[in-house]
């Protein structure tokens, strides 16, 4: 119970952020009430990217040490990351329907997240096609690293498809934050909350996998 204090705190924190997102922040010009998706959509996309990097890092560790524990971290991170990728895609798509009048129109941001979905799908397809768990870990790690190596090129190549209409709260050429201070507070708070939430889910997921591993060893 004592060690779980931060989980309670996170619960309160997230509640405050949700309330803040709907009651405290103003709406942005031209976006109306749809502004509020910002506090959930962008953190989801952030966690989706973060988990992909974590998965690649643990894949490198696995190839160095050949210890199945690292594979568990890599695979768990990818699974949770996939969930957040879907969340970011769906929230973004609903928002796009409202603002751009279509659910999908290959905006660079949409394309990037779609490629991320494809990479995750391929990663899981590969894992399910291999029986022996060390072999599965090895091949999945190699794939994950190669996908990771491809990402910088995607970042360069995808924006060339179309000009983006995507609003840029943080990442823009002028490197300026074009946000109302109140919006920024909730946005950063939510970003932090989502990151801790991700960490928590990842811990639970890996804990389950470690227990499974222990059980199978005992049998």
């Amino acid at each position, binding site marked *: 119970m004592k060690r779980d204090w931060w989980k309670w705190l996170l619960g309160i924190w997230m509640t405050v952020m949700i309330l803040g997102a709907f009651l405290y922040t103003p709406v942005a010009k031209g976006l109306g009430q749809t502004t509020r998706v910002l506090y959930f959509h962008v953190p989801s996309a952030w966690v989706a990217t973060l988990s992909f990097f974590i998965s690649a890092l643990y894949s490198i560790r696995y190839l160095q040490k050949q210890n199945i524990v690292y594979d568990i971290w890599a695979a768990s991170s990818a699974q949770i990351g996939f969930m957040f990728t879907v969340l970011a895609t769906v929230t973004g798509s609903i928002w796009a329907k409202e603002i751009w009048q279509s659910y999908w129109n290959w905006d660079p941001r949409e394309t990037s997240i779609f490629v991320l979905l494809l990479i995750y799908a*391929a990663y899981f397809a*590969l894992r399910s*096609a291999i029986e022996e768990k060390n*072999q599965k870990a090895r091949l999945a790690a*190699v*794939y994950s690293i190669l996908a990771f*190596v491809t990402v910088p090129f995607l970042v*360069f*190549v995808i924006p060339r498809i179309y000009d983006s209409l995507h609003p840029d709260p943080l990442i823009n050429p002028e490197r300026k934050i074009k946000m109302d201070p109140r919006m920024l507070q909730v946005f950063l708070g939510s970003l932090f909350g989502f990151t801790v939430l991700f960490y928590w889910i990842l811990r639970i997921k890996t804990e389950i996998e470690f227990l499974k591993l222990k059980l199978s060893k005992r049998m």
Partner: protein
Amino acid sequence: MNLRKSALEENVWTLLVKSNIIFQKDFHLEFRTRYAINAIILFAVISLTAVSFSIGPMQLDPPIQSAMLWIIIFFSAMSGLAHIFVREEEQQTSDTLRLVAPPTAIFLGKWVFNVVLLFSLEIIVIPLYIALLNVDVQGMGAFLTIIILGSVGLASIGTIMAAIVAQASTRGALFAVLSFPLSIPVLRSAIQGTWTAIQGGGLADCLADIQLLFSFTVVILTSSIMLFEFIWRK
């Protein structure tokens, strides 16, 4: 003790010599059985005729023409490039190979084979493409450069993915699923560059695409060489 010195020694030169021997062996085998080349060329010709047949007398715009070309090349590659490793696995010769040659030499030999395979495909398919889709290529130099660089890029991804897929249980579909996300930078720049070249662009006009194709291929190839040992050695 008559232990041959070469038995324990490896350097860059012997590595290159050995990859050449592997390539020759695969070329020889392919020449005799023609499994991969038949599959890949037939696939390309059929999809090309299917496109030409379904558009009838219509004239496609350059952007669509160049996209068509790369879609055809990509899927033909997907039908034939995995063969190089799957064949060794299916005929149970991969363990024999593991015991006689260093992994890097094997990867390089197989990579050269796949590059040659894609080039041979294009020698047949590109004239057909120009004729059937009535493509008027105005910047031939840039066009060929993009084709060559794009093919080497696709062959590099195809070879390392083939090595992975050869050890999995569902090979056919998995190969395309794994290769596609990684091929997007290649496809995107190649389509863009081909389009520019068809419209009369020179090398300077497609410089950005050429740079990307080149650097991406170098990066993928280097990481493949580093990672191949982890795939190959069980």
